[in-house]
């Protein structure tokens, strides 16, 4: 088993780092550049940038933020939000991203997953899924930042996405996102038990111990953290130490 990856998730609107609840009610947190650099200096394993309005308005402010980050941040960067085509993926990768995360456009056109994987490799194609619980152990795929329902079952979609070439899953619980109530463990477990590719659990990390639970019980391979880092409720170093002391494999840093 590879080390668990600690990922800082930066939701972006325009030029700002923002944070919402259930992916809505967005508030400006600060400058994405300053936050990203701070997390890098604290030893974050990866960065995840998500443009939360791009797919709604069909625009993408991210390239400039990513290009600027790539000058002094030397860990992998995944970028999502508003990527609709192989050309969009190419331009964001040229700006310095290592992987692209695609949700809305992949639901509209599942072949896009295969096209991106074929051109850049599966390791580059992250299938982003926004999940809302709709019944006992049942979750539905949402698009457009948790606004639009699709009628698609999350577990079915994950399996299809992986067979189409997705190399990684970014699994966001819309129900938990921004609530600080902890991860949706049954959701994460339902997905990790079905696929062999790495799964990033996102949404709900309120306290450092939530991470232990989603790794042990949910079997997440990576954990996306936003609110807890942005508002300084915990630092990357402190979270890493806690994970290590609890016996989880994390990278040695510092």
């Amino acid at each position, binding site marked *: 088993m590879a080390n668990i990856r600690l990922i800082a998730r930066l939701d972006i609107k325009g030029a700002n780092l923002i944070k919402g609840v259930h992916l809505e009610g967005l508030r400006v947190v600060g400058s994405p550049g300053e936050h990203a650099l701070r997390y890098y200096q604290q030893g974050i394993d990866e960065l995840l940038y998500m443009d939360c309005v791009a797919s709604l308005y069909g625009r993408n402010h991210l390239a400039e933020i990513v290009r600027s980050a*790539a000058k002094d941040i*030397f860990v992998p960067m995944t970028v999502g939000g508003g990527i609709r085509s192989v050309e969009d993926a190419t331009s964001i990768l040229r700006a310095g991203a290592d992987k692209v995360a695609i949700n809305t456009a992949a639901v509209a056109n599942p072949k896009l997953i295969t096209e991106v994987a074929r051109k850049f*490799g*599966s390791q580059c194609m992250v299938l982003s899924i926004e999940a809302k619980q709709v019944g006992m152990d049942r979750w539905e795929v949402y698009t457009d930042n948790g606004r639009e329902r699709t009628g698609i079952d999350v577990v079915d979609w994950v399996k299809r996405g992986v067979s189409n070439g997705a*190399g990684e899953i970014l699994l966001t619980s819309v129900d938990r996102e921004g609530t600080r109530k902890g991860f949706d463990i049954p959701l994460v477990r339902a997905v990790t038990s079905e696929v062999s590719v790495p799964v990033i659990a996102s949404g709900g990390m309120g306290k450092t111990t939530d991470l232990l639970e989603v790794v042990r019980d949910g079997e997440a391979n990576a954990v996306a953290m936003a609110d807890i880092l942005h508002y300084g409720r915990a630092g990357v170093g402190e979270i890493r130490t806690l994970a290590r002391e609890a016996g989880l494999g994390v990278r*040695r840093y510092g």
Partner: protein
Amino acid sequence: MANPEITVIDYGVGNLLSVQRGLEHCGASVLLTSDPAQVRAAARVVLPGVGAFSNAMTALRELGLVPAIQEIAARGTPLLGICLGMQLLLDESDEFGLTAGLGIIPGRVVAIPVRTVQQEAQKIPHIGWNELQPAGTSSWQKTMLEDVMFGEAVYFVHSFMAVPSDPAHRLADCLYGGHRIPAVIGKGRTTGCQFHPEKSGEVGLKILRRFCAS
């Protein structure tokens, strides 16, 4: 003193921006080229690469870069292969049928075992941060790893591994599913890194800085 010049081979595979930014961060001035004459004239050469082995060899051959890279390596020009660029340094690869490589370091590229040493299924590709361990008795003195400590972690993304036939060419390994996977190999002034030093934080930058000073 002028900035050290690094020539990065651009043969149309993968995103070179991160490698360029990493080298520039270490104070280098970077020349991206696909011209064999510029490679032959270079002071230090980086061979990057992501994707499939056979596609990469085809691209290098079509651009006339194969003899140029072999020549500079034989002449002792510092050469750093990164990820697929490391695998290309070997004699041949099993990926999608047997394909000849550059033959600079004797050995073969083979798939990472799909099972752990305990026979459990393991995730392929090997993605993530993993720790560098000395391979056998080799010392890291006077190598690209001179400034790196045993156990420091770097970022890997790969499904195949480059295994030199001479253990003396193995500098560092990492452990995945209990298997030893070559992480850094070297022969003369040629070095190969399976991981991405440009994505491995300060540890990776230490390696790039050492290469810029070589």
